[in-house]
């Protein structure tokens, strides 16, 4: 494997499949027309030393949609996620959010601009209660600073009360029982922890929600409920959802568009039934026939 220098995506929007109307930075708010992607990656590449974990990926998340990223273990899905959320800086390529270049921005800035995520292996704040976890999720939407914390003027009290109230609403929205609201998160059941992670992500009022294997460890019943829940998020809250998932039933049911990664490369992209019958996808998952 080697870096293909030629694939550096200098001219934005060169790929006709991914029209990106606003190239440079300051078109805050919605893209010019409603059909442009909320979140887009162009030629995104990540190399760890000599290993190309993600290689020249073009990818777009349209507004109010559910799109999936699948692939065998080690295909580079989570690495790609980490670049979208700012945990990794892409070696090459460009990431735009609502047409604004956010490549290499700090994770907290990206969250503030409207991308929220959950983690493959749940990463809650273990000794915080459910409500407190969600309140941390609201960090970028609240303001109280050092002086506000010490003096605690009415403005800060109001903000604090509103944050607590919103946290409880979100917990109810993701389907948690009221009795666990003030429970410390490590004492919660696995399923509740997964729900709490989604509530915490929603707390930052995201435009795009990135879910990294949300159904891991769930039984079919719970997975089906989560599928419904994702649709509700899209339809009721107008969210775009990017999903990494191994449960093909969930993926095929809920996705409008699927991208398949293998060894860091995009090997297929399309509607669920197209991807399902794609030779290269079958090969990646099952090995070569014959």
């Amino acid at each position, binding site marked *: 494997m080697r870096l293909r220098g030629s694939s550096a995506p200098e001219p934005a929007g060169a790929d006709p499949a991914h029209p990106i109307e606003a190239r440079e930075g300051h078109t805050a708010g919605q893209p010019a027309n409603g059909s442009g992607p909320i979140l887009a990656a162009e030629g995104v590449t990540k190399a760890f030393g000599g290993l190309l974990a993600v290689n020249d990926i073009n990818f777009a998340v349209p507004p109010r949609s559910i799109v999936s990223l699948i692939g065998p273990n080690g295909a580079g899905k989570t690495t790609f996620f980490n670049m979208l959320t700012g945990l990794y800086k892409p070696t090459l390529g460009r990431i735009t959010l609502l047409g604004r270049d956010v490549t290499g921005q700090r994770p*907290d800035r990206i969250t503030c601009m409207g991308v929220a995520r959950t983690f493959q*292996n749940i*990463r809650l704040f273990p000794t*915080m209660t459910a409500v407190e976890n969600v309140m941390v999720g609201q*960090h970028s939407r609240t303001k109280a600073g050092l002086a506000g*914390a010490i003096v*605690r003027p009415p403005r800060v009290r109001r903000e604090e009360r509103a944050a607590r109230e919103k946290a409880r609403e979100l917990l109810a929205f993701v389907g948690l029982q009221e009795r666990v*609201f003030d429970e410390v998160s490590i004492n919660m059941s696995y399923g509740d922890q997964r729900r709490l992670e989604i509530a915490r992500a929603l707390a930052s009022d995201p435009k795009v929600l990135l879910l990294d294997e949300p159904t891991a460890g769930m039984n079919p019943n719970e997975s089906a409920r989560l599928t419904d829940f994702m649709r509700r998020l899209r339809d009721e809250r107008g969210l775009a959802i990017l999903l990494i998932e191994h449960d093909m039933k969930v993926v095929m049911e809920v996705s409008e568009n699927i991208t398949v990664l293998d060894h860091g490369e995009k090997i297929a992209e399309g509607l669920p039934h197209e991807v399902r019958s794609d030779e290269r996808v079958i090969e990646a998952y099952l090995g070569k026939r014959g």
Partner: protein
Amino acid sequence: MSALRELGRRRYANLAIAALVLGIAAVFPLLFDPISGTVGDAIKALAFVVMALGLNVVVGFAGLLDLGYVAFYAFGALTVGWFASDHFSSVNAEAGIHLGVSEFISSLPGIHLNWLLIVVAAVIVTGIAGMLIGLPTLRLRGDYIAIVTLAFGEIIGRFAANGDQVKIGEYAFSNGRQAISPTDPIKLPFFQEFDQAFNIRPYYYVALALCAITLFVNFRLRDSRLGRAWVAIREDEVAAASMGVPLVKTKLLAYGIGAALGGIAGAFLGAYLNSVNGGQFQFGFSIFILAMVILGGLGSIWGVVIGAVVVSVINYYVIPDLLDRVATDLDLGFTVSQISFGVFGFLLVVMMVLRPEGILPERRRKLELSGEAGSADDALVEVRA
């Protein structure tokens, strides 16, 4: 709703405890002679409570191990040395600069500012120093942070100890081991200048007031948006950043606040001890304060207060008055005072074995130490601060 009510109860419980503790502390010096040595030790202990609570913000709340806390004591005390003595003896054509000081002091050369102004200056100086030391540690974690802060504490300590050689213009950084002395006594508005020769109780009450303010600040910070962000960073930096907590800013605030509180206590001690000796800012002092925080219970505000009092009692009473006598009786050939840091080290080890969460543990630490709340696997994720 029951949770809300319980929260309310807890808040009043805290207020009641605070009122009781401060009330008892307020009566304490009246039981002794106005210039009693015990009250003198208690004054220092109160200053240590302020420092321990400051260090608790950095180590306990934000989880950043700081082994160089003595640096902020040094800066706070040096602020007194610079701005409340004849250190800058020839400023203003040897007439000196005076602001809000007594008539007698107004006749002295050098810069002499009112103590309250010096506290403000100390907060600014140490707050900036705290953030400066914070900057290089931001890319580091755990033990590595400790090493950098340790080095920083040593650098400042060495600078202060050899400050008579470090000249800025015609003035030395400090007087080294000769000490900048005398420093001005504290003078508060509406009060006479404090006079240690007759009565040290005013110093005690100033220290107690500093403790009360520091306690208030600690409680408010703990239960705030900022306090939650610190806990989040302590428990999972990657998740915290992904939830929108700016790591650099939040950590620097912890360093800055911890440093500022250390600086306030330093400014108090510099004035109370009447001199600023460059040799007193040793590494051992950082450990002395850290031992208070750990013995009391990392992150637990009342625990740290207890820890600071217990360690001070051991330092000023148990070791010199009890153990030294035993050592003399047994004819050991040395005094326990000479190995006092060994005693604290031993205490820390015993504590780690018997009760690692501290005397009065914080709820979260207890959970963390119970092993259930193990930190997440960070190996694969590089957090870009």
